[in-house]
Structures are given as structure tokens and as C-alpha cells.
């Protein structure tokens, strides 16, 4: 099973490319057990949305 470091890399890369099935499997296994990496996954989505919101002028004046 991949380590947290490996998982954080895969979660980041999942935003940039399609992962292979082996990578996905390792990721899913790890995420079933690890709260920290689950938090990280949600935070990556949040960061992506926040940058786009910032670009589009959605921040309150």
C-alpha cells in the first residue's frame, strides 16, 4: 500500500492526469484508513475552487 507521501503525490497528480488502475487501487485502499490523506484530498478540491473563484472576482469586496 502506498505511503502518505506517495498518496499525496497521487492525489495531486490526479488533478493533472488520469491515474492508472493500480494507482487508483492503492489510493482507495489507503484512503479507507487514513483521515489525514482524506482531509488532504478535500483540501486540494477546495484550493482548486478557491483559485478559480479568486480569478473570477468572486471574493467579497
Amino acid at each position, binding site marked *: 500500500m502506498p*505511503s*502518505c*507521501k*506517495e498518496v*499525496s*503525490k497521487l492525489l*495531486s*497528480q490526479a*488533478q*493533472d*492526469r488520469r491515474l492508472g488502475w493500480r494507482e487508483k487501487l492503492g489510493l482507495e485502499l489507503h484512503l479507507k484508513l487514513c*483521515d*489525514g*490523506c482524506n*482531509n*488532504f484530498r*478535500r*483540501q*486540494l478540491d*477546495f*484550493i*482548486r475552487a*478557491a*483559485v*478559480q*473563484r*479568486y*480569478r*473570477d*472576482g*468572486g*471574493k*467579497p*469586496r
Partner: protein
Amino acid sequence: MSAPGNEDLQQHRPYLLRYAVLQLRDADVAEDVVQETLLAALEGRAGFSGKSSHKTWLTGILKHKIIDVMRRKSREQTLTPNEGESDADAIDALFKHDGHWQQFPASWGNPERALEDKRFWEMFEICSQRMPERTARVFMMREVMELSSEEICKALDITPTNLWVMLHRARLSLRACLEINWFGGPGK
């Protein structure tokens, strides 16, 4: 939509400028690029197909101009490698030898609420500027311009592996900065 007049185009200037500043990190260069974009649009407005909105059309032109600037910078090596620790070292520093997090990412609860807070955005700006320049530029090409990995690698003449390390570092560092300074710090 019909061919846009100058006023139609000018109303998008603030958006274009924000977009360019985020990517280029230089208000003067951003101003120039936006100016060029609006001029090019004005000259080429007869060719506006009407299939997209004016804003989308302008953004498309701006993107090309920004990529040109980035490509030039990359070629002229003004986009220097990061000073100090490499991206890989910066990533390593966040993990223990066995691959566990030094600090496990905490739950941010309902982070969407922060988007409504002006002070959050100030911190967001500070945190995004805290990354090394080269890392930040690459991150913005991906997240602001939404270029694909292939497009970025081609423009900057770097390998995908190289690119993904930079993006990983950028996300880790932005995450850590927001957690420490906004979402309450580790362990809370």
C-alpha cells in the same frame, strides 16, 4: 453575439487584468499584455465568430499572449530555478522517513464559509505569494489558465515529471500555509 465595439471590450479590462496579474505577478507586464489583447481584439473584431461570449473570446486571446511571455521567460532563463531548497526537498521536508506526514492534515470543517470572508482572501494572496516564483507560475498556468500538463510542458520545455513535482509542491505549500494561518493550525 455581434462584433464587439470598443466599450464592449473595455468593460472586461478589470477581469483580464486580474487574470494576467495572477499569472504574471508583475502589474506592469500584466498591464501591457492586457493592452495588447484589447488592441488585437479591436483589430480582429470582424473575425469574432459570435459562438462564445466576448469575455471568453478575450480570455482566449489573453491566454495566448501570456503563454508567449512565459515561453520567452523560460527560454531566456529569466524564469530561474528556485533559489534555496528544490521542490523535491521541500516535499520531503513535510514527511517522515517512513512516508507519514510530519503534521497530518487537519479537518477544515466547512471551508467554503471562508470564501465569504475578506480576510481569508488576504491570507490566500499572502500564501500564494509565499511559493517560489517558478513554482507559483507553473501552478497558476495550471489553475488560473487551466492549461493541460501537455500545454505547460510544451510552453516551458519541461518534462511531465518535472511539472508534477512542482504542482505537488505548490499545492502542499499553499495547503500548509492556509492551515497554519487560517484553518486553525495542526491538531485543532
